[in-house]
């Protein structure tokens, strides 16, 4: 096992280098590509930290969907404007900011090194609770997300809805109700079409599978939903499907399904189990999977909408 520390250091240096490239690259497109690469490297770090759920989420959402978002944005910006001479900050400001950044990084590193060796954590309680009558789940992260800190997760779904409405609101008044601009070119490359034909059905199945097993193994609603969202985006990029009209009823219902079901089940908890957001013992697992199913739907709908952007009046290509 003595190769591992060397690999760790290699991975760490690689990540820092790519992150630095993201920050100091001259060209916008280079910076975005560096960011996507760095996100994938981070997924490896998460696996090294024994966090497969997080690795899945980082790969799917943090690097995958965010990458599509940033690349699309970069392309739309770069397509029209020439190399705009931006006002570069003067050297004094650079030194000052550099000093500040170094100071913050060192203070943070010191704080991290000074963290207590065996922090008093909740891990033991969560283990006994997860497998006990509390939730009966094999995946403690799902237990934390949907059972113990369900309030956080419900609020986070509301945050997603808010972001979608916020993105929609940036469109023009005249375009309201239309569909966002298509994600792909009007004549998608054959490679893209081929990829979509192969990938989309398989990816959809894998996404559903990840959600389903997430109760007891790494996975869950966020990861499964993100994968389904990615598959829909792939299909849209190959022009198999178009972004829907934002006033479509099914779209609105799909968007709110997750938080709405969460809200109703949470309110019902007071009669079912004596407390808001409590689950009756013995029924916790089916209820959790029920809520997660609707969460998957909402996430699969919301993420592509966030990438697609505000409604547009006409189609640009």
């Amino acid at each position, binding site marked *: 096992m003595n190769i591992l520390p060397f690999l760790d250091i290699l991975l760490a240096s690689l990540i820092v280098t790519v992150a630095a490239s993201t920050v100091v690259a001259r060209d916008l497109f280079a910076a975005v590509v560096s960011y996507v690469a760095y996100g994938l490297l981070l997924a490896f770090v998460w696996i090294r930290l*024994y966090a497969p759920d997080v690795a899945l989420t980082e790969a799917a*959402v943090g690097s995958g969907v965010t990458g599509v978002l940033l690349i699309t944005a970069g392309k739309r910006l770069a397509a029209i404007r020439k190399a705009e001479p931006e006002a570069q900050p003067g050297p004094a400001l650079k030194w000052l900011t550099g000093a500040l950044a170094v100071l913050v990084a060192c203070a943070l590193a010191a704080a991290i090194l000074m963290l207590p060796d065996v922090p008093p954590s909740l891990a033991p309680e969560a283990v006994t609770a997860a497998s006990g009558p509390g939730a009966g789940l094999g995946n403690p992260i799902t237990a934390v997300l949907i059972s113990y800190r369900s309030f956080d997760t419900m609020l986070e779904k509301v945050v997603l809805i808010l972001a979608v409405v916020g993105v929609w609101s940036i469109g023009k008044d005249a375009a309201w109700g239309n569909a966002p601009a298509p994600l792909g070119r009007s004549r998608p490359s054959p490679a893209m079409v081929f990829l979509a034909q192969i990938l989309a059905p398989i990816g959809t199945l894998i996404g559903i599978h990840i959600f389903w097993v997430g109760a007891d193994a790494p996975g869950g609603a966020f990861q499964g939903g993100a994968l389904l969202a990615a598959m829909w985006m792939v299909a849209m990029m190959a022009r198999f499907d178009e972004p829907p009209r934002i006033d479509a009823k099914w779209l609105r219902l799909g968007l709110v399904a997750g938080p709405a079901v969460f809200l109703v089940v949470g309110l019902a908890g007071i009669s079912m189990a004596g407390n808001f957001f409590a689950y009756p013992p013995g029924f916790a697992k089916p209820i959790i999977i029920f809520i997660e199913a609707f969460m998957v739907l909402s996430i699969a709908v919301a993420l592509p909408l966030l990438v697609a952007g505000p409604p547009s009046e006409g189609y640009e290509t």
Partner: protein
Amino acid sequence: MSPSTLAGLVGATLVGLGLYGLVLHPHPLRKLLAFNVIGNGVFLVFGIIARRGAAAGLSFDPVPQAMVITGIVVAFAASALAVALILGLYSEAGRVTLDPDAWTKPGPEEGK
């Protein structure tokens, strides 16, 4: 040096790098990229805390990991909102700058 300590130091470095980029770059999309770098650094700090919280039976503490998952999704939503604003600003005004003086037009006829 254990993997978690190394990861923690990487996290601290990322926060520093991202902060540098966030303050310095004039272009909002670069600022957004830098913000995401900071975000990932913060999540790494959560991650090492999760790893250090390993106890009997579990190799990690699930609470910080759940927070990271929430944080990743929220950070993506924030990026999407920022991108929409940047693109909207570009399509409305033809340029993207955060300098407020660029938008004030002199002249008495300019009113609310």
